[in-house]
């Protein structure tokens, strides 16, 4: 079956612009996660959804970052007034349920470059 997909694969934008990153999870997975991976580091948690609601958004760095999952499937990560420090690979993952024994399957990521 299809895995987690993310679009676009690459996004180059200018400082101050608004960007949207999209994630299509595995069909039927109720939990969806966003992580950010900066160069040379491991992924860092941003936010996770259980169904349509954001169950934990403690990893979002500031109020310029926002994510939605209106129908409990596709999710969009939105970044306002982008800064150069936002440049990173944004990874999305999904799992059947948000429990430790349920494997998180990752998409290939969106590489965001803010000039």
């Amino acid at each position: 079956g299809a895995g987690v997909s993310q679009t676009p694969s690459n996004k180059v934008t200018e400082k101050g612009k608004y960007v949207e990153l999209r994630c299509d999870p595995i069909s039927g997975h109720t939990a969806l996660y966003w992580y950010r991976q900066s160069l040379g580091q491991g992924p860092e948690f941003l936010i996770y959804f259980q169904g349509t609601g954001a169950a934990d958004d403690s990893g979002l760095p500031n109020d310029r970052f926002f994510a939605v999952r209106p129908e409990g499937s596709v999710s969009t990560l939105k970044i306002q007034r982008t800064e150069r420090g936002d440049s990173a690979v944004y990874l999305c993952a999904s799992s059947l349920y948000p429990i430790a024994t349920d494997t998180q399957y990752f998409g290939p990521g969106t590489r965001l470059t803010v000039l």
Partner: protein
Amino acid sequence: DQQVKQNSPSLSVQEGRISILNCDYTNSMFDYFLWYKKYPAEGPTFLISISSIKDKNEDGRFTVFLNKSAKHLSLHIVPSQPGDSAVYFCAATADNAGNMLTFGGGTRLMVKP
């Protein structure tokens, strides 16, 4: 504060030999640990996991060992193969954390033919 640390940024081993990747954690609430493998331009893929109630879990060539008193885990790959060359991430989660993963910084493994 890094709650999960991988102190070796890289490791080089000969094909057929054992690869040992190490990981340390500080948060005693972590009760489930995972290893993910990542190739360039791809997302991390799950490799193997271990619950805190166990000290060893084996899956084919891959074995994970957990030492709770030392807050240390390791991944053993034997025998190592060139296709194992990738970045390996250690990750941890707590039962009440909604499966939010905390990752280490990764170790790049290079298996030489």
